[in-house]
Each structure stands twice: as C-alpha cells, then as structure tokens.
C-alpha cells in the first residue's frame, strides 16, 4: 500500500548539483521574472497599505489630491496584493513544482515570459487607472474593464504552459502537491472569467453583482491561493525534513474537501439575498473544518518527531509558520461565520484581521519559504548564497509584524463589534475607541514591509553573485 509517500522518494531527490536535469531550473529566466514581479508587487501593496494605515493617525495625510485618497489607495492595494503578488506567485510556485515533481522541463519558456510581461504591464496600467479613479468598484475585483481581459489572456497563456508541462511529466505517480497545484491553476480562469463576464462585460442584475464579487474574492483567497500555498507546504515540509508525508489519503481528503467546501462562502450573514444562499455560504464555511483538521493531523504526524529540526532550518521556518497561520485563519473564519458571532464581528476590523493573517501571514510566508529554496537553484547557486543575517531578520520582521498587525486588528474588530452591539454607544464614539489598536497595527505593517525590502536586497545580492559567476565562467572558457 502506498500510504507513505515522500517528495524525496517520488521525484525530487535532486541535489543542488544535479539541478539541471529535467526541472524548470534549466530555463530560469521566465520563472525568475515571474517571482521578481510578484515580490515587487507585494512591496507595492505593502507600501500602499502602510500609506492607508498612516491616514488613521492623521486623516489629512495625503488627502489634498484625489490620487492618493484613502479609498483609491485601498483599492489599488487590494489589486496589487491579490493580482500582482498572489496570482503570479501561485503560478510561479505551480510551474516550478510541476517541473520538479514531474521531472519535466518547463514547456514553452518564451510563452511563459510573454505571459509574465503582459500580466505585469496590464496590471501596472490597471493599478494606475484605479488611482486615477477608474476602478470597477467591486472589492477584490477592482480591475478596470479593459484590464481584466488582458490579464485573462496572459493567464491562459501561462496556464497552457503549465498544462503542457504537467502533461510531459516523466513520473506516473502524482504527489499531493501536484493535485493542489492543478486544482489552483484550474480554479482561477473559471472564477476570473465569471467575474469579468458578469461584473464588467454584461453586468448581472442588481444585488447579484455583489454576490458574484463576494464569491470571486472568497474563491480567489480560500481556494486559489489556499491550494497553491498548501502545495508548497506539502512539498517543502516533508522534503526539507527528509521525512515521508504521513498519509496520502488524508492529503486527498483535505484537497477535495477544501475544493468543495472552501469554494462555498464569502457571503455575510444578513446580506440582502434569499436566505438559502446565505445558508449555503455558512454551511460551506463551517465544513472547511474538515480540510483544516485533515491538514493539521497530516502535518502533525509528519513532523512530530522532528520538532527541533523544524525550527533549525531557516527556510523551513517560513513554511511551517505560514501553515500554522493558515490553520488559525481558517479557524477564525469558521468562528466568524456563525450567525451569533457574525452579528457582532461582521463589517468590523475582524475581517481585515483575517485578510492580514491569510495573505501576509499564510500566503506570503509560504511563498517566501519556497523562494528561499527555489531562487538560488534557478540561478545555479546553492543555499549558502543567501546572506543569513538578512534572512533571519526578514523572518523575524515578517513574523512579528504579522502577529502585531493581526492581534491589534483582531482586538479592534472584536472591541468595535461588542461596543456596537449596544445601540446606546454612538458609532463615532466606538470608532474613536478602536483607534489605539488600529495605530498599533501600523507598526506591524511597517515591519512586514521592512522584511520584504530586506528580502529584495538579499535577492539583489544573489542576482549579483550569479552575474559574477557567469562572467567568471565565460572568462574561463575564453
């Protein structure tokens, strides 16, 4: 029985030295561009988020002109985080894992490069348009009407390359990470085209627009980013520990239940919709307890004898802390959807706290963990190329920053909700009382931004090192 499978055994016992054999590392430029673009967009999103956070200390901050007013910056930040960082990072992880686990070379690298270029330029134009007042007005889907089809075309190009890479795999047996990657890559074009069609091209009638926007934003985070991040956790945690994954069946259970239940949700209780839609959303969200427990059990039994090793490896720390954040975010979402709780927590900072933990905690940390492993191998270097001090500082800043921001936003949200539940408290009074935790969250957000800047410095450092090595090799040959 093949219950015990490890990525080390199935496909990737490749040591850094044998890197060029049948992996995406043989043609590194498209993937490097994809990752570099994603991390730069994360920097942009964090900087915009910090700008908005500072406005809570002084509403007059950058309020003189329309371009950097709060609402526009907020929309631009969302677009940069979800479509600038999230989608390309998930695609990059997916492409790399499909190459690695299938022992296949990246299909059509030039097409990938073309897709990356189109995606990033279209998105840059879109974000600029949002700051100029051209946003679509749907939260999570702020892109202007002319921008979304270009992004879809670029994604389809990249997705086809991923599909061909998957089809050319040398390994017959699929490792769980491959299911997760295929699932996430399959999800995006469906939800994105639905949202584009029914929100921008031929808008649905009335309140259906709000429903589709909620459904899109929920699926984009929970399913698309969730599956992509978990693919990375399922690959790197067993691999770097050198232990087999505990159970393939539990992984399959987590995969299918996350796809089925995770995709049903995102509608707030009390929304102006027929009750069955809201109930479906609540039931789906509550049932995500199944994948949550399946993933937690699976990883607990995988790592329980190696808890010290887990903490010793600087790269692994990003991945497993990211996974723990995923579990906490999932639990928070389940609790927050229960009608009695949502009556208090809906429409407060509680939701923002969840977004912070999910995107900057789970997804960004998981991606960074993977990038610390992938990038040197793409450049033909080994792990030692990273500056260890910058790496440690990045981890501490990201970890502490996300924790500070999350806890303070959560406190602000719960406080706001409890105070508002008593109608004798006037709304402006309540908001003034949530100011203190909100201002503390600015500190956390600046830590996260600083950490990302340190990562970019470290990345520049290994790019230079690779350049030096390349020149030395050329000289030797001459």
């Amino acid at each position, binding site marked *: 029985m093949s219950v015990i499978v490890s990525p080390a055994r199935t496909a990737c016992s490749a040591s850094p030295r044998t890197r060029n054999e049948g992996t995406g590392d043989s043609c590194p430029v498209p993937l490097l561009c994809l990752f570099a673009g994603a991390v730069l967009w994360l920097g942009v999103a964090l900087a915009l988020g910090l700008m908005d956070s500072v406005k809570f200390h002084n*509403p007059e901050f950058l309020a003189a002109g329309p371009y950097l*007013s709060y609402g526009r910056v907020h929309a631009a930040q969302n677009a940069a985080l979800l479509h600038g960082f999230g989608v390309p990072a998930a695609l990059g992880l997916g492409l790399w894992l499909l190459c690695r686990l299938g022992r296949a070379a990246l299909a059509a690298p030039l097409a990938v490069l073309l897709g990356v270029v189109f995606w990033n330029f279209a998105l840059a134009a879109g974000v600029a348009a949002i700051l100029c007042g051209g946003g679509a007005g749907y939260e999570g889907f702020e892109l202007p009407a002319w921008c979304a089809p270009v992004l879809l075309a670029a994604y389809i190009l990249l997705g086809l390359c991923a599909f061909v890479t998957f089809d050319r795999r040398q390994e017959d047996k699929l490792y769980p990470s491959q299911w997760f990657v295929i699932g996430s890559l399959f999800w995006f074009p469906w939800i994105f085209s639905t949202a584009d069609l029914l929100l921008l091209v031929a808008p649905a009638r009335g309140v259906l627009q709000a429903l589709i926007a909620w459904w899109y934003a929920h699926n984009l985070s929970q399913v698309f980013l969730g599956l992509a991040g978990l693919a990375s956790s399922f690959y790197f945690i067993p691999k770097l520990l050198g232990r087999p994954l505990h159970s393939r069946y539990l992984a399959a259970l987590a995969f299918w239940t996350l*796809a089925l239940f995770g*995709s049903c949700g995102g509608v707030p209780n009390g929304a102006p919709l*027929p009750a069955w839609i809201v109930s479906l959303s609540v039931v789906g969200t509550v049932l995500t307890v199944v994948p949550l427990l399946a993933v937690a059990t699976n990883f607990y039994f995988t790592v329980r004898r190696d808890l010290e090793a887990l903490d010793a490896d600087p790269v692994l720390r990003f991945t497993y802390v990211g996974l723990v954040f995923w579990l906490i975010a999932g639990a928070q979402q389940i609790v927050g959807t229960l009608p009695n709780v949502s*009556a208090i927590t809906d429409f*407060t900072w509680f939701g923002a706290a969840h977004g912070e933990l999910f995107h900057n905690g789970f997804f960004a940390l998981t991606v960074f963990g993977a990038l610390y492993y992938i990038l040197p191998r793409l450049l033909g270097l080994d792990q030692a190329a990273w500056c260890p001090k910058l790496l440690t500082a990045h981890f501490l800043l990201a970890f502490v920053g996300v924790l500070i921001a999350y806890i303070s936003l959560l406190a602000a949200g719960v406080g706001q909700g409890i105070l508002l539940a008593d109608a004798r408290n006037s709304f*402006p009074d309540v908001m003034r009382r949530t100011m203190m935790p909100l201002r503390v969250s600015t500190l956390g957000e600046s830590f996260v931004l600083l950490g990302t800047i340190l990562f970019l410095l470290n990345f520049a450092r290994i790019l230079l090192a690779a350049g030096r090595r390349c020149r030395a090799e050329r000289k030797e040959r001459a």
Partner: protein
Amino acid sequence: MNSGPLLFLGLFVTMACSWLGFVLGPQLQLGGLTQTNTVVMGDALSQTYPVPEPGDAHQGAEVYRANGCACCHTEMVRPRSLGSDIAHSWGARRSLAEDYLFDQPVMLGSQRVGPDLANVGLRSDTNGILVRLYNPRRIIRRSLMPPYRFLFETRKIGFFPSPDALVLPAPDAPPLGYEVIPRPQARALAAYLMSLRQTGYLFEAPPPPARPLKTNAVPTNAVPAVKAPAAK
C-alpha cells in the same frame, strides 16, 4: 489519484457545484427581478418600488465608485436578529434584493469604518453632506474620515456671490472676498447620497407592528370564533 484526466474531471465537478450554487442558481432566481409594489400601510397607497434614481444621482454613484467610498461604508442594513443595525437607526427594515435593482455598480461594501449609508438620504440634507465632505471633523469630533476638499473650489467672489457657495461654519470659512463652490462631482455625489433611501416596506420585510404584540393577542388572520350556522 494518479490519473490526470480523473483529477481534471473531479475538479470540474467540484467547481461546478460552487458555480451552480453561487452564480447560476441565484441568477435563475433573481436575474429576472423587477419592480414590485410596497405593502399597504395605514392610509398610504401601495407604490411601485424601487424607482430609478435621477441622472445626477447616477453620476454621483460614479464618483462614489471612483473614490472607493465603499471600502469604509456599507450600504446594507442587516435584520434585527443579525446585528444592531436597526437599533443604530441605520434603517427601519432590513435591506432586500429589490433595493439594489437599478444600482450599477452595486457597492454593498464589507467594512464599517464609517456608518452604514443605506438610508443616509433620510437623515441628511445636501448642505450637511457637502460640509461633511469638505471637513468631516467640523461635524464629528475627531472623525476618521479624510476630507475631500479636492471636490471643491475656493475662488474669488465675482460680481454676485454664487448661490451654490457652501455655507461653512467660522473656522473653515474662506477668507473675505472668497467663496467655496462644490465642483460638479461633489454635487453629484451629494445627490447620490441623498438618493440612498430604502423606504418601501415589501412583502419580505413588512412594517413592524405598531405596538408590541401581546402574547395572547389574536393574530389578524385567525378565523373569527363564530359558530357556523347549524345545518337545517
């Protein structure tokens, strides 16, 4: 699970479930939603609801969208059992699908940094909204709302003072000989906000009882306790 085609088939079916439940099903039920009639209340006659908003309010919705107002303000009132919205006087009844029939785009929002605006047109006046946009802290002490002064123009008073000039309290008043004029966007935005009112009581959200029902009150639709005439 080692077969690629089976994996894709499974994903297709799973995805289709979510799509049927959250896109196609609601579209079949609500896609053909039309205007309806309000519930008759007291002497008032039943009215057609909702009525399309006037043109300037429609332009104002574009200003609301462009400036991302919906990231701090919701436009929906939850039912009494699911939150304190009605107790905060943000609306007399819960919001319904019909309320958004003519909105494009529909901006319900997801967070309340500012109050809910579903019925802001019922509790404000145009000048109050404009003053609030110009300097929110003049109305609410230490308000978190940023000022939207770029929607206004301070200019020298011409031959006659403009009738549109904003009436501002002393600290914000422009220097002598100048006046603050709301730009067209500001006026459109104010018209949009004034058009936000979810007034009609509909079948799904009937008017609340005039006084609390007593526990032993007879329901209005109960069969009167009159003996049927005995059969001859």
